[in-house]
């Protein structure tokens, strides 16, 4: 350990604010970028899934004989 105590570690002989600000910004930006990348990957998988399900529904509807008019709830994607 290069420091005598924890408070000395935080203070870094007066250079603490600079050092810690750097590390904070570094980790925050890296984390944001990593989380953002994972989330956009998830989002694209999700939108693909919805697209495929929508297509599958449509082809099912096309395959079955046209239903007579009814008031049944129809699941339609809102996008």
């Amino acid at each position, binding site marked *: *350990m*290069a*420091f005598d105590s924890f408070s000395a*570690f935080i203070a*870094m*002989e*007066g*250079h*603490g604010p*600079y*050092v810690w*600000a*750097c*590390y904070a*910004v*570094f980790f925050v*930006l*890296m984390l944001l*970028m*990593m989380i953002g*990348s*994972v989330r*956009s*990957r998830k989002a*694209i*998988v999700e939108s*693909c*899934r919805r*697209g*495929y399900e929508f297509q599958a529904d449509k082809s099912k509807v096309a395959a079955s004989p046209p239903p007579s008019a009814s008031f049944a709830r129809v699941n339609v994607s809102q996008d």
Partner: protein
Amino acid sequence: MWQFFHKLGSPKWFFGISTRFMPWLLAGGVILLMAGVVWGLAFAPEDYLQGNSYRIIFIHVPTAFMAQSVYIMMASAALVTLVWRMKLADVFVKAVAPVGLVLTFLALFTGAVWGKPTWGTWWIWDARLTSMLILMFLYGGVIALDRAINDEKSAARAVAVLVLVGVVNIPIIKYSVEWWNTLHQPATFKLTEKPSMPAEMWVPLLLSVLGLYLIFGWLACVRMQTEILSREQRTRWVREFVMKGRV
């Protein structure tokens, strides 16, 4: 050999192989980076000239190093895009450019904050800082051009041309900025150069550079996968992956 090359260019193949590697990249990267950072922050000896502020080096050097090598990687990929029209290469350029921008920004930011206790000012028009700033502009231009062109294929090729023009210019910019710097101000502000770094300093530095490299690899994989998924939505393998969860 050629078969391997073709395989390498296939998005499906890449998707499968990268999914297998990604956990290892992330785990290795985080462990190495944390080890380097903790070692550097708490255990490395104090620098006798700069005091504790030098501890910023353990993130400043990795980000600066990565910022430059990412551009070189992009340029190699751009060459591949133009010569062999390999799909993966332009996916790489597109996926990685924003990461490069963030890394360049981090290198500049940590450099500026380090400068305050060392040089007594947030910013000096030091040759290295200035050429880093210009590198950030280059990244910004690449991203802006990519966003501006709607057609995927021509966007990829236009960006490739721009990246290659940039990489020809980088040594010229670096050299001219250094020349300008010596002309305009005597080298009063220079990072104090010590004869050699003790091992307790460079080993953690090496660890954090390697760690950031691996994390970058993981980020590149995630972002490339995102891009591949959005481009290949209509293929059967993407459909199978999305619906059944495997490639």
